[in-house]
């Protein structure tokens, strides 16, 4: 019998059973599947059972007593999806975000997400909201979405089952690719880019890997139901992935004070989330922020233009001065250029 068919038969049998179903009965009901040697049959049933558990089928084995016999039972109440009584707003939030993530192409656990949306929509009737929200996630280069999406799916499974992955990684900091084994702890999305954080066996510590830079990826297939590692209880994704260029953990934290004027003053909170803002004379806003990667901040300040100045510390001021001077020098009129009228 086809495995899908056999497992569905088991579901139908166990959902209907009023008494525990013993192993002997199962063998009797499915002679061509669970026949053969005891060992082979048991192994086959163990695999089927694992699949049922994976599907969320609440199967347990009960030891018999005076009242009932040994066997497998299913807790029906724990099987059937109950109505979640989601309000219109709650359903809209889950639906908007879920469908936007699916439409975006690269979101880990896409299959899981699609099933989840179907299930929460089961009791909602026909009128499910499908707002037009679209996100371009994961791909840095055009046409990369499919590859990133496939990698995310593998990483999601590996994270869920705690299996190590073997990856070939192309870091822009190194001329050649590196091959390493990583225990995947989690996935974070920052400004449209997905990052894998995990314990890197090559470097012997926690490392972050941008998913679009992974060239090859293999998940350990040995003992699929045994965890290869445990994620430390105090692990937090946020502590290892930066939102903004100045948050990369490269140097010790230093406080930088910026002076924002003109149109930038009213946008200060949006430009530097988390910064302490203070209004100064003439509509100017002062922003104090902790920085662990100064060059990242200075480059961002330069791109904002002359309305963004560095006030302190001196090291940050001179860094901006150096970078701006270099840009001016690089763009100096070339000898022999015509002077425009």
């Amino acid at each position, binding site marked *: 019998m086809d495995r899908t068919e056999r497992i569905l038969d088991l579901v139908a049998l166990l959902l209907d059973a009023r008494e525990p179903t013993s192993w002997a009965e199962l063998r009797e009901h499915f002679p061509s599947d669970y026949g053969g040697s005891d060992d082979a049959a048991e192994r086959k049933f163990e695999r089927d059972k694992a699949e049922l558990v994976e599907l969320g089928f609440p199967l347990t084995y009960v030891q018999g007593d005076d009242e009932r016999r040994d066997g497998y039972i299913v807790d029906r109440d724990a099987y059937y999806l109950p109505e979640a009584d989601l309000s219109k707003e709650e359903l809209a939030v889950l639906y908007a*975000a879920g469908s936007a993530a699916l439409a975006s192409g690269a979101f880990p656990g896409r299959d899981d997400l699609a099933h989840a949306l179907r299930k929460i929509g089961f009791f909602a009737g026909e009128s499910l909201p499908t707002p037009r929200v679209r996100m371009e996630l994961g791909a840095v280069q055009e046409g990369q979405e499919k590859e990133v999406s496939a990698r995310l799916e593998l990483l999601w499974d590996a994270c869920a089952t705690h299996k190590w992955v073997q990856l070939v990684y192309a870091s822009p900091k190194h001329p050649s690719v590196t091959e390493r084994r990583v225990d995947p702890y989690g996935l974070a999305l920052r400004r449209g880019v997905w990052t894998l954080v995990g314990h890197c066996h090559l470097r012997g510590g926690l490392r972050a890997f941008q998913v679009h830079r992974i060239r090859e990826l293999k998940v350990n297939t040995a003992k699929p139901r045994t965890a290869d590692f445990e994620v430390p209880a105090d692990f937090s*994704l946020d502590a290892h992935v930066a939102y903004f260029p100045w948050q990369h953990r490269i140097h010790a934290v230093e406080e930088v004070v910026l002076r924002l004027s003109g149109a930038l003053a009213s946008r200060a909170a949006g430009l530097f989330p988390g910064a302490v803002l203070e209004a100064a004379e003439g509509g100017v806003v002062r922003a104090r922020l902790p920085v662990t990667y100064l060059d990242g901040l200075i480059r961002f300040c330069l791109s904002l233009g002359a309305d963004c100045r560095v006030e302190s510390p001196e090291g940050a001021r001179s860094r901006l001065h150096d970078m701006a001077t270099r840009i001016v020098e690089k763009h100096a009129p070339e000898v022999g250029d015509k002077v425009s009228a």
Partner: protein
Amino acid sequence: MSNVHERLRRLLFLVPYVSKHPGVTVEALARALNVSREDLLEELDLLTCVGRPPFNPDDYIDIYVDNDRVYVDLDQRLFAPPRLTAGEAAALAASAELLRPATGDALRSALQKLEGIIPPAALERFRGMYRKIDASAEAPEALGPLTRAILERREVMFDYASPGRPSEPRRVRPYELLSHRGQWYLQGFCHTRQDARLFRLDRMEALAVTDTAFEPPPNARADVPNPARSRTEASVRVRFSPIAAPYVKERFGRDARPLSDGGVEVLVAGDSERWLTQWVLSFGGEAEVVEPQAARAAVARAARASLG
């Protein structure tokens, strides 16, 4: 996940779905399950073989297609789908984070209710997996009301500050929200400008949803200008040092021409001087506009202003 697993999940949803929507068309059912018509008909064939011992005629699932509509007479207790698995709930909860904090209270209460429909035994695993995706995108507050306005097809009003101009009121038909490289945009028809426009959410102020209804065009789709794909005849040649080259190659792929010193050179759109200048400056001296002269001069001017 294996094909068997995917198929089982689909089938355990299919039977209850038809049970709840008797007479659903084959096409609508295929769409609900995201499978092709052919694959769906194959699944229905398989289901007619599913039943429970002793496998008498009444012990089988009785599901059939009549006049292109699907019915189930005997569902063999598959009248509701299974609860959400830990993985399904975690993926859903993590995706909801994408719209945080705009989604506020509704998200918090939705997640609480979600925990109530996961099998109790899977709760701990759900919480563990939920922690494994961090997709909070720092969505702006405006996302909530704008999502609602798009859904309810109502015009919005806001003050908008275009770069280099003072803020002015706009009245807009909102069509689509788009997140691109961590930045949120609204695409819509601007009454003030009488044209389609793309607005950055972080430049909106005093947003209000009006009672004026509108009918959106069928294919309104926002596209954010991308220098790598919107090259015009007015292209600008930009050269990058060997330090910046790997990052540029990553974004431009084969369009980044290697130079003998280890750097690269690319052609980008030159129609927005403001964008180009900002972009070149963001490389902090590792990028140089080669030509045209006007663009070189604009970058030099902006850098000198920062020195001032």
